[in-house]
């Protein structure tokens, strides 16, 4: 009896084990083939840079035209642009291009460097550049709008590309020059439009300093190309032989990995980063508040199609009610800076019209907010402490920020409390991010917070974000508040047509726009979000900082930031030992 029982249990066990091994065996095999071409073993720690903060899921594709979801570094490490932009100096630096200039008002000529080769050994020519820019002609292309004002991109000879314009938008063109990647025509030319726009491009061949080594679900590994052209032409060599970008795990995990020195650079907002910096566990650009460089402005966006937000006086009163100082100190621990009344980033300080701001700028002042409301005719008729609409109906606004964005959720509560002090009833709601984005696009909201416009070569990108017309059924990227002001939009377009070396002309145009902006207050600037960057010094040192002699580049691998100092940071790193 005893043996039979045992036998049966063993049979059961055997069945289970068989099933188990069958499943695991199959799964692992497939995982292996679907995974990498990588060799086993580990990367040498002292030659590898571990980064995180850009990628939020498995690396999706290596298509530089998809600069919103390609794997971190596809554009910047593998594919390069004609120019880079130096936010510190405020000017373009030639990259693939040796030089570029306007030969007349509507013609721009780029001279390429000689001796640049693709990773497969073929030379980079002007044809590649013309081809790459020409890809915008495909209707479903993300930069199709370029071709509404560009009329031709032509390779004149092997190293010269001539761009001719229907309408010269100088400001936007500079932005394009350091934003648009150049791809090899000899590889891409035979692809279908669909493959060009949506292909995975899993064997990326670029001109850049790195090539793809391997990829798995949670990381991508880049390996340095020792024959990169920049080593000779620019006398630059990125220090890490390998760059491993890890998909962003949770904040707790990142903090743990930073603490153990496993991660070298985290480009993610970490709550409590200031205490990590103060205790010297990590370093950042500044060693005291605000710790980080500023990367973008967080705005309070009122929906100007709804009452009473369609009233400039009400928007101004709302602006004066916001206690930004409390958000900066209480919510962020001074990781961010309060925004100027114009919302222009510190890097654009020269464009602020100081006299105008002194006259029309706003500060946190509940008394002034109350006065403004009273003068505009908003009264508390039922004595509940909150003002009513002009027609006497109840006034209650909802401020929506995405659920789980804890810093913004706290900030929203501070804004609601500030509004209450001024007599405006604002309640907070925290819907799912996707649902909120959809409602925002359709204009189905009262108040939201948004910070999607990043630092660029020109404040024009900010004004385009604030004033762009016409308002569409769906507002995906700009003017979420659906603010309509023809005059302002004309001024913005005029600014777009000012040559980028004409600083005085830009200032004059910006000043006029600021006048409208401060009076009308279509968006309320709140604070400058940081260029989140926490690094450890166990393996790599010489991180950018404001200390004397330290590099001044922007230490970020975020999309489109590799061209704004991220790549330069890599070349300035030094091994710790």
């Amino acid at each position, binding site marked *: 009896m005893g043996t039979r029982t045992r036998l049966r249990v063993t049979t059961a066990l055997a069945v289970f084990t068989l099933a188990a091994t069958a499943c695991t065996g199959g799964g692992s095999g497939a995982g292996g083939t679907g995974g990498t071409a990588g060799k*086993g073993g580990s990367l040498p720690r002292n030659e590898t840079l571990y980064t995180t903060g850009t990628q939020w899921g498995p690396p999706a594709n290596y298509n530089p035209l998809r600069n919103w979801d390609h794997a971190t570094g596809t554009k910047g490490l593998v594919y390069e642009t004609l120019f880079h932009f130096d936010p510190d100096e405020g000017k373009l630096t030639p990259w693939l291009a040796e030089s570029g200039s306007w030969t007349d008002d509507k013609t721009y000529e780029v001279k390429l460097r000689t001796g640049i080769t693709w990773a497969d050994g073929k030379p980079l020519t002007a044809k590649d550049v013309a081809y790459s820019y020409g890809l915008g002609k495909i209707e479903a292309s993300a930069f199709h709008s370029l071709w509404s004002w560009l009329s031709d991109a032509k390779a004149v000879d092997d190293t010269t590309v001539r761009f001719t314009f229907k309408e010269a938008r100088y400001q936007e063109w500079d932005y394009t020059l350091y934003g648009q990647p150049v791809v090899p025509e000899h590889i891409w030319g035979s692809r279908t439009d669909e493959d060009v726009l949506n292909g995975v491009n899993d064997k990326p061949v670029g001109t850049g300093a790195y090539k793809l080594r391997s990829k798995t679900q949670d990381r991508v590994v880049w390996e340095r190309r020792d024959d990169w052209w920049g080593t000779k032409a620019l006398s630059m060599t990125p220090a890490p032989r390998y760059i491993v970008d890890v998909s962003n795990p949770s904040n707790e995990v990142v903090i743990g990995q930073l603490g153990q020195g496993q991660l070298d650079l985290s480009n993610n907002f970490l709550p409590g980063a200031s205490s990590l910096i103060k205790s010297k566990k990590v370093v950042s650009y500044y060693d005291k508040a605000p710790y980080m460089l500023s990367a973008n402005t967080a705005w309070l966006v009122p929906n100007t199609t709804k009452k009473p937000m369609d009233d400039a006086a009400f928007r101004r009163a709302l602006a004066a009610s916001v206690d930004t100082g409390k958000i900066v100190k209480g919510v962020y621990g001074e990781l961010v800076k309060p925004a100027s009344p114009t919302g222009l980033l510190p890097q654009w300080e020269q464009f602020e019209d100081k006299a105008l701001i002194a006259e029309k700028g706003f500060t946190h002042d509940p008394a002034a907010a109350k006065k403004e409301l009273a003068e505009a005719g908003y009264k508390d008729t039922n004595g509940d402490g909150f003002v009513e609409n002009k027609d006497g109906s109840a006034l209650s606004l909802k401020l929506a920020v995405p659920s789980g964005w804890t810093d913004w959720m706290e900030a929203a509560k501070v804004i609601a409390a500030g509004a209450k002090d001024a007599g405006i009833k604002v309640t907070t709601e925290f819907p799912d991010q996707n649902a909120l984005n959809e409602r925002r696009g359709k204009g189905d909201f009262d108040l939201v917070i948004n910070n999607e416009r990043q630092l660029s070569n020109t404040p024009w990108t900010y004004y385009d974000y604030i004033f762009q017309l016409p308002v569409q059924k769906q507002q995906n990227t700009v003017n979420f508040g659906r603010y309509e002001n023809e005059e302002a939009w004309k001024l913005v377009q005029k600014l777009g047509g000012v040559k980028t070396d004409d600083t005085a002309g830009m200032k004059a145009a910006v000043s006029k726009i600021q006048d409208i902006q401060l009076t009308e207050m279509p968006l309320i600037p709140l604070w400058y979000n940081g260029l989140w960057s926490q690094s450890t010094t166990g393996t790599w040192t010489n991180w950018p900082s404001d200390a004397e002699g330290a590099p001044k580049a922007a230490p970020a691998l975020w999309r489109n930031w590799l061209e704004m100092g991220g790549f330069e940071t890599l070349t300035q790193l030094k091994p710790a030992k």
Partner: protein
Amino acid sequence: MRRYFARKLLIYGLTFVVAVTVNWMIPRFMPGDPVSAMVARARVSQPEAAEAMRTYYNNLFGFDEPLWQQYLHFWGALLQGDFGISIFVFPTPVGDVLLDALPYTLGLMIPAVLLSWFVGNWIGALSARRKVLDNTVLPAGYLLTAMPYMWIAVILAWALGAKAGWFPISGGYSLDIQPGWNGDFVLDALHHWVLPFLSLFLVALGGWAIGMRNMIIYELESDYSSYLSALGAPQRLIRRYAFRNAVLPQVTGLALQLGVLVAGALVTEIVFAYPGLGSLILAAIQNQDFFLLQGAFLFIVIGVLIANFLIDIVYVVVDPRTRTGMAGGTS
């Protein structure tokens, strides 16, 4: 025997169809529109370009068709092993994304389920006849089984990972290692596997131990045990009979518990940032990736059904009554 399996297969087939249909429906009734999200992410400002892009994606994912057609196409593609293209990891096929994650989830689930079952039953059976053991196993078992998976996961991560520093608290393998079939990777992966495994194992363990203990006590007090005892049979033999009877409900329980365990594994993976299906499902929900979500659930449904089917087979082996019943049925 044939009729028994035919009936079982029919039931599993029906369950599969219903589960897959529900799978297909759920993401489509979630709030939000994935194509809008995709277009918005692309930061296309020009309305014509945005419209062209939207049309393209709608067409690509088949959202421009009426729902019933989408449903039929879904089945057609599914039967050819095509799960569609992921929106979140665009443009990778969902099948590839899932296959990369599957080994981790299976490697966690299968040992946790089986070992907790065997060890739990063993401890339960032991504790049923030793007072001292019973006094400790019972409260400990209740405590463990009542613990939410993520809670025990967090405690383990804190105690054994953050404080003691014995085990890494996140990821499926170290940052500096590349997956491959070599000693370094396997050891490293095992090291990362311990904590998520333990948290699944411990919670399930408690339940099985309590169940087995109660069953054994019940069986030992039943008539046949008393009868055997009156006949003067040795205690060992009686216990053996009791165990064989007690284990049957536990096998059924295993089939019933599988779904719960899968859910637990998903939560545990998220806590430990383990690169399995759980983390993918979370990301798919956050990014409204219908196809990835569908595919992941489908894998889980298939997995649970297969496991249940195996348990049915095991039942035939361990329970002689099933066989007798089948023999009677066919003759």
